[in-house]
């Protein structure tokens, strides 16, 4: 359900700030310049909440509120006053007419979201059907870690991604960073002093802006107690130290619900190309496998009948990779998709050592592999 929020303020600046505050939520913000426009829009649009200023031309907020509360249809719409008129007398006067809440300007966007969030169930806009984010889209990852070496390791390990990796060392700085901008994923060191990671986690979950943000605990592999506690309180996942960066990258992509298929699959003219990376560990294999069938189906559906498995970056062959490739070949055969392989000399040599792979023929380049289809 998309909620409607009506902001009634003669200041365009305030109306823009309100629009900005709620743009990440599944909530439509409609605007009125004064009380007359506000009443008209309230009747026409039936908003779920009204944010109302006091001092406005034509009809001020007090008069609009009085008329609203005397209208049998409109009186049940919750009103939050958002005004610089915050003296005790003003507050008491307005409270007598009937408002749900009162925000005195100046105000932080977070406070506005929090107060409106108490009235309507604000949900991040990502919960509604939108374009799936790709692994090549920018995102912001915030690390809360007091050990610079760990931050440096993460930043270095993810430098090839389009993600902005930020680091803070205290919980206060983390809360400030979340207030300043939208964080797509957080990693909090569970070894911060005084169990600060768990306190921060609770604060973030109580805040509408970060309620649904994926949060990972950064923890030493052997610290079972901290890992158990993190799982109990509801951390999205764990990143165990020493860090395996390719595994961490895959976990982050999954937690942010990113479409990683573009990293491995592309349609190159009339050919589906599947490129495997240098480090083809189990996490990567699982990730590629989740996209394989759908990508083959999509390719066939769009008229493609050739596929190349490009392994030229892969350094070594292991049983997991062999099993995966056998499964990929079988999937191609099932839909009559012709395929060929590209690989380095080292891979070709390794293939000769296994019964299942001895007969595999590799081309040195993608162009050669594509040319081989001319004989079909």
């Amino acid at each position: 359900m998309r909620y409607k929020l009506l902001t009634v303020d003669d200041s365009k600046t305030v109306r823009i700030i309100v629009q900005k505050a709620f743009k990440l939520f599944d909530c439509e913000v409609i605007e009125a310049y004064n009380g007359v426009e506000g009443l008209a829009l309230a009747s026409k649009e039936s908003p779920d909440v009204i944010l109302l200023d006091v001092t406005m031309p034509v009809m001020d907020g007090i008069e609009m509120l009085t008329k609203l509360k005397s209208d049998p249809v409109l009186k049940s719409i919750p009103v939050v006053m958002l005004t610089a008129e915050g003296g005790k007398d003003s507050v008491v006067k307005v409270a007598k007419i009937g408002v749900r809440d009162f925000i005195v300007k100046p105000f932080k966007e977070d406070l506005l979201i929090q107060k409106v969030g108490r009235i309507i169930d604000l949900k991040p806009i990502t919960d509604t059907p939108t374009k799936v984010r790709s692994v090549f889209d920018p995102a912001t990852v915030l690390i809360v870690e007091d050990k610079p070496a760990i931050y440096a390791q993460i930043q270095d390990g993810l430098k090839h991604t389009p993600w902005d990796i930020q680091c803070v060392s205290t919980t206060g700085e983390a809360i400030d960073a979340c207030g300043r901008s939208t964080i797509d994923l957080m990693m909090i060191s569970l070894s911060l002093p005084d169990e600060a990671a768990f306190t921060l986690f609770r604060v973030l979950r109580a805040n509408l802006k970060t309620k649904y943000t994926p949060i990972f605990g950064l923890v030493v592999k052997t610290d079972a107690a901290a890992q158990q506690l993190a799982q109990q309180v509801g951390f999205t996942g764990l990143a165990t130290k020493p860090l395996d960066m390719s595994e961490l990258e895959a976990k982050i992509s999954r937690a942010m619900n990113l479409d990683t298929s573009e990293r491995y699959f592309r349609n190159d003219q009339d050919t589906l190309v599947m490129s495997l990376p240098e480090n083809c560990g189990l996490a990567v294999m699982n990730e590629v496998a989740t996209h394989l069938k759908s990508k083959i189906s999509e390719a066939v559906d769009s008229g493609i009948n050739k596929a190349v498995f490009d392994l030229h970056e892969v350094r070594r062959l292991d049983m997991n990779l062999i099993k995966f490739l056998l499964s990929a070949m079988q999937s191609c055969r099932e839909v009559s998709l012709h395929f060929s392989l590209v690989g380095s000399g080292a891979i070709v040599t390794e293939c000769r050592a296994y019964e299942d792979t001895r007969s595999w023929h590799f081309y040195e380049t993608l162009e050669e592999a594509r040319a081989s289809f001319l004989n079909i």
Partner: protein
Amino acid sequence: MPAIEDIPETVFQDTVSRAVHRVFSTMLGRSAVLEPIDSLTPPDATELEHPHVVGTVGFIGSINGLIYLYLAVPFAQECASHLLGMNTAQLAKAGDEAVNDAIGEITNMTVGTFKNQLSDRGFPCRLTIPSILRCSRISIKPMSSATRRIYRFKIGSHILTADLLMQTGE
């Protein structure tokens, strides 16, 4: 209720300092530091030689008054850009109107915070609608019955001048 002349100077200074600091730290993430100047001396026109955006909001009640906030145009643009979440190009496209409105709102919030403190001290009053002046070499001559105080704040590398004109009201 004490007359305006009986209100100690420190009350005005503290009240306006708190208001400026609260607005600039909450809305713009900037701290405002009060400059040690004589609050009875009007701003020198040469200080305001460059083009300025001046926001004005009044308050009416047991004290009547006006507060002018003087911001040099680049500072006003910087504030508007931050407040509206616009970059320089977007702000330029939005024009002076957007800057005026943003400074009007900053003034409204500052004067509101100032007068709310006065209201809570037993001087109830209400705000008027903001207005904006764009000018160079501005000089304001208040009526002789008005109490005037001038405060200057350093905000980053910029200066904000607050000019208060008040007299006892209803």
